[in-house]
C-alpha cells in the first residue's frame, strides 16, 4: 500500500482552508491544515510534509518569509512548496520563485489543479 502523501496546507481563510482540506483528504492525501506562518514553520519541522501548499498572503509571518526560512534550513529545504498568490500577475510568480517556492498557483485555484500540482511535486520529490 502506498502511503498517503503528506501535505501541509497553510491558508488563513477558514473557508478556503477547509474546502481544500476536505477535497485533498478525499483524494487520499494526509493533510495537516494550519492558518498562519508561525504554525507553518512549527509543523514543517515536526510533521515532515512532502509538500507545503503555502498562501503567500499570511497575516503574521508572510508566505515569502516562510518559504525563505524553510528553504534555508537543512531539515526543511527539500520540502516542495506550492505558492498560492492573490493574483496571476507576472511579478507574483517571480517573487514566489525568488522566495524558493517550487510551483505557483494563482487564486482562485480549482482543487483539481492544486491536486495535480501536489501530485507532480510528490513525483519530483520521490
Amino acid at each position, binding site marked *: 500500500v502506498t502511503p498517503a502523501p503528506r501535505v501541509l496546507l497553510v491558508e488563513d481563510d477558514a473557508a478556503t482552508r477547509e*474546502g481544500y482540506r*476536505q477535497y485533498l483528504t478525499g483524494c487520499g492525501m494526509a493533510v495537516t491544515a494550519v492558518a498562519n506562518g508561525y504554525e507553518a514553520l512549527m509543523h514543517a519541522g515536526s510533521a515532515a510534509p512532502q509538500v507545503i501548499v503555502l498562501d503567500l498572503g499570511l497575516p503574521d509571518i508572510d508566505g515569502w518569509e516562510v518559504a525563505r526560512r524553510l528553504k534555508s534550513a537543512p531539515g526543511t529545504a527539500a520540502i516542495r512548496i506550492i505558492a498560492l498568490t492573490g493574483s*496571476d500577475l*507576472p*511579478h507574483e510568480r517571480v517573487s514566489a520563485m525568488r522566495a524558493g517556492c517550487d510551483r505557483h498557483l494563482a487564486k482562485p485555484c*480549482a482543487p483539481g489543479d492544486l491536486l495535480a500540482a501536489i501530485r507532480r511535486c510528490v513525483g519530483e520529490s520521490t
Partner: protein
Amino acid sequence: VRLRALTLAAATALIAFAFTTRPVALGRPGITPVPCPTQEWQPGDPTFDALPGAKAFFGAYDGGLYKIEIPDNWNGELALYAHGFVSNAGAQGSALRVGNSPIREHLIQEGYAWAASSYRCNGYVPGQGLLDTMALTELFTKSNGGRAPRRVYLTGTSMGGHVTLLGMHEFPTAFAGGLAMCPAGPELFDFFAATAGAAEVITGVQARLDTLQADVARMSELLGKPGAYTDKGRQLASVEIQISGGPRPFAMEGLASGGRFAGNINPAALAGSTTPSNRAVMTTHIKYSVDERLGLTADALNKTARRKALDPEVRNPMGPYDELVPFDGRLERPTLTMHGTGDLFVPIVLEQSLKRAVAAAGKDGLLAQRIYRIAGHCGFSQPEMIKAFDDLIAWVHKGTRPAGDDVNGDLSNAGLTFTNPLRPNDPGGIRVAADAKP
C-alpha cells in the same frame, strides 16, 4: 450545528472553486538565470517626460532602473518591453540604461500602458532580463493607484526577443500574448561558433583561447571585408548566408551591417571557453553548405571543420540555466515573431528552429511568424511593428490567429507580405556571386 455550518462553508467554498476554474496553470518552478557578470553597476538617469495625455513614472528598483508610462485613457492592459543586448564591456559597460518601447507613441495613443527595465545588469542576460521585466507589474500596480493590469503582454527586441520567448515558454500562462521582434535564442551562439569553424578551415588559422583576438584578427586579414572580400572572404560570406537560413533578400547587405561578417566569427566555444553560454554551444549538428562555384565544397567543410559537442551539464532541460536550452515549443498563449531576411547578427535560422520546436509540441496554432525584407538587425518600420502588435492584440481578444509566413520554406523571395514599406534596392543581395569582384 457547528459541524453543519462547517460542512456548509466547505461546500460553499467548493462550489465557488467549481465556478472559478481557470485554464490549468500549473506554474512551473520558474527559472534560474545565468548570473550577472561580476562588476559594479552604475545606474543611469531614468527620467523622461510623459507624452501628452499620459503620466510618466520612473526610478530605481531591485531590478535596476524602470520606466512606466500610463495613458489617461488607460484601457486596462500593459505591454512590458524587454530591451536588447547591452555590452558589459568598454567605457559604458557598467552603466545601466532603460529605454522606451519602440512603439511607445502607438501604445499611449491606443490606451495601453507600457513598462521597461534596464535589468539589474548588462551582458547577454535573458534570464535576468525576464525576471526583472516580470517584476515590473508590481511597480506598475503601485504607480497606478493599486489598479492591476487586466492583461499583460510581453514584448522585446533582439535579446529582449529571447526574453520574450523565454517568458512565453517558462511562464506559459503569465502573459496574455508575446511579441518577439528579431528574437535571439539559445542557438544563436551555435551559429557564431559554426561560423568560426568554417573560418578556421577557409583561412587555415585555428583559434586558441590564449590568442583568440589575434587569431580572429589574422582571419579577418585573410578574408577581407564587405565590399573588399578576398576569395576566401567570399567563401565565408556564402557559408554564413547558407547556415543562417539560406539565400534571401538583403543577406549580403546584412553581412555588411554592423560589422557582422567578421563579428560572427566567435571561436571561443571551439577553443574551450568555460563560460556557461560557451559550454552550452553545440555545432555537431551544423550541416555546412556553400556556393561551390566559389572554390570550396560543402563536403570538405563538413569533414574538416572543428566541431563542439554540447556540454550536457549545461545545455540540459533539467537546468541549471533554462535560457541556454533550446525552446521546447510548449507555448500556451499567442506568440507573434518578426524577423528580417537580412539579419545576419541574429539570423532567421533561429525562427526555423523555433517553428520546428513549436510544431513538435503540437502548438502551431499559438505561433505566427512574419518575415520582413530588410538589411541588418531589428530595422523594422513603425508600421511593421504597430501592425504586428495590433494583430497580436486582436488574436488575444478575438482568438483569431493572424497571418504569418512559412519560415521553413524557400526564403529567396520571402517577406513580401508584411514588409512595409519595401526598402530601397529591394530585393537586395541574395547570394554571393561567384564572379563578384571586391
